[in-house]
């Protein structure tokens, strides 16, 4: 989740609700005067206007009142949740809650289905959102989707993929074999890196590019069109080295490998601070030169979930 995603700012009125979510408990106000349950939290009853209201714990059991599957992100920052399964849940107490569904395929979703809560930790500080899944689903009641946890999950998945893939060895001077690597199809996704503010700040110090859109989260929250700070394009470009990619081949037999730089370098879309990035690649071309064999590897780095790359880099490598 990008740090630029809107997050709840608990108030004095709502804090008990948000604090309870952190503990995996759903706590909502109840009116002692008329018995009405109240959501979202208020200090008065929105049926009888009594202020004799107290917090009570509820099970979170309810039914799906309505939902939609959003095919275009409702905000670019939700690209990593695509397709968004936006929903309204009606608790058995009668209140409705705007939420999202998790752990369900689109085909499993039916209006009226029984649902149960999922307490989703989204920030390292413990901030938790209330999501729902089907009552009969074997899905954990508490999940951790902080960027760090999701990146670690991806790391394990890619490591397993790489371990399970047989790597094709190709001699650098076997022109036909080298040319057969050229493909329109990209590799599977790489591991992920969280581009957090600390990393961006370090890069700003190193590069001397400390423009506020990268380094001043408060100003960026007010003035940046992206709702917060974004990473330097050059930072995202070099982070490629940190991403492990299941390439599926290995060039062998050469004496020397020279990085010739880039044929094309583009930064088509921003990386908001806190985003997870990953990359994929394809061999774009192979050319036999007098000096050796030249391979162009197109690497595209994306914010997780975003179809549009943040960096396009055509790396040129000469094997001699």
């Amino acid at each position, binding site marked *: 989740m990008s740090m630029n*995603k*809107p*997050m*709840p*700012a*608990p*108030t004095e*009125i*709502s804090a008990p609700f948000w604090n309870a979510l952190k503990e995996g408990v759903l706590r909502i106000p109840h009116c002692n005067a008329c018995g009405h349950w109240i959501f*979202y939290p208020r200090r008065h009853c929105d049926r009888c206007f009594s202020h004799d209201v107290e917090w009570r714990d509820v099970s979170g059991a309810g039914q799906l*009142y*309505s*939902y*939609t*599957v*959003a*095919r*275009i*992100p*409702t*905000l670019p920052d*939700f690209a990593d*949740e695509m397709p*968004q399964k*936006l*929903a*309204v849940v009606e608790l058995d107490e009668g209140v*409705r*809650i*705007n*939420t*999202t569904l998790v752990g369900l395929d689109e085909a499993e979703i*039916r*209006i*009226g289905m029984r649902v149960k809560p999922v307490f989703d930790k989204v920030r390292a500080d413990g901030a938790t*959102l209330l*999501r729902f899944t089907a009552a009969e689903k074997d899905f954990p009641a508490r999940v951790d989707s902080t960027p760090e946890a999701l990146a670690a999950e991806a790391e394990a998945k890619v490591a397993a993929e790489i371990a399970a893939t047989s790597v094709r060895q190709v001699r650098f001077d076997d022109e036909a074999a080298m040319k057969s690597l050229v493909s329109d199809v990209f590799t599977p996704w790489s591991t992920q890196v969280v581009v957090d503010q600390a990393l961006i700040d370090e890069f700003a110090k190193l590069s001397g590019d400390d423009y506020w859109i990268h380094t001043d989260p408060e100003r960026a929250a007010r*003035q*940046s*069109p992206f*709702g917060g700070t974004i990473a330097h394009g050059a930072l995202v470009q070099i982070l490629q080295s940190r991403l492990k990619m299941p390439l599926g081949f290995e060039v062998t037999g050469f004496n020397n490998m020279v990085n010739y730089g880039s044929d094309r370098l583009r930064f088509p879309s921003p990386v908001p601070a806190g985003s997870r990035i990953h990359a994929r690649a394809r061999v774009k071309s192979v050319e036999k030169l007098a000096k050796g064999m030249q391979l162009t590897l197109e690497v595209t780095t994306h914010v997780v979930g975003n179809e549009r790359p943040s960096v396009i880099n055509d790396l040129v490598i000469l094997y001699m």
Partner: protein
Amino acid sequence: MGLKGQAAIVGAAQYKPEKYATAPRMFHLEQVADLAARALQDAGLKASDLDGLVINGPQFHEASVFVPAMAAEYLGMRLNFAEVVDLGGTTSVGMIWRAAAAIELGLCQAVLCVLPARMAPFGPEEDPAWMARAMRFGGHSTAFGAPEAEFDLPYGHMGQNTGYAMIAQRYAARYGYDPAAMAKIAVDQRTNALTNPDAMFFGKPLTAEEVLGSKMVADPLHVLEIVMPVAGGAAVIVASKEVAARARNRPAFVTGFGEHLAFKSPSYAAEMTETPIGPASRRAFEMAGLKPGDVDAAQIYDCYTITVLLTLEDAGFCEKGEGMRFVREHDLTWRGNFPMNTHGGQLSFGQAGSAGGMSQVIEAFTQLAGRSGDRQLKRCDRVYVSGTGGVMSEQGALILQGA
């Protein structure tokens, strides 16, 4: 209770909808002055006849408070009645009845209802990025303590599309759903737009296959079932019977209105498929002493096809749950047996912000005055107009009648 039908729409003006990128940039005050002059000319009235102003408060570029006073000063108006309306897409309908009510109360004789909706020139501190920033959360408040900032936005519940989509999904679960009937709403309205040179989609025929083949935005809504935001602006003059008598056009008397709202997010509606246009329309028809079947045309606010469907049902043009069948069984074009959104509706005319809803009011007035050109209805004496703001969260209805 209610209006006696002593006030009427006598003149109107609206900018031809245009893409934001190519539309002229004008200050809102300047647009108000320009639209006022055009509406006065249309009515055949003088500036000195105007003594009331109803204007938008939200989205007014040069001020967020004291808007009527600033506009009165800029235009050179002396006002006995001034009002700001903040009802999203039903601002248009809300303006007309407020003006009519003020006139019947004797507060004023001629009211300018105006909605500037072209972009203003960029100031030194403003640029397209500033616009993008301002638009990031659309009509949602991100203020500390705003319930939607706390309980909707973090989940991605924002904008209008997904709210309308969820209403449509629940409708489908309760009553069934016929995508082809929904597409027909857009297609029949496009047929109407083909007779309206001012419409954004004039000269661009549309088929049901194209609607159903267009990109799914949020299930079950396709992109061609959703209005296109455009630059524009509109002004309408509502005047007393006496002033109407010396105006140029056949007046459209305001004989009924209704308004209803109870929530911003439809998630909190008692039942999200039973929309506020129901109580609003019942009041409007009752006030006018008419039934839904008595009107010659319906100009129904159409931000989405689902808005039209639910308005047809909840306003009483057909039974609840029968809307799809009603659409299938009626020709909704200007030459059909249920003329609806005869200018093309906002789906084909374009939606110029909150002025979009005024296109429906102006079309009703134009039809009643017999000035609709190729799409003129043979008989047009009574028209129903609806307005919808938010996600079917604030709605209003008008009955307009020719003298």
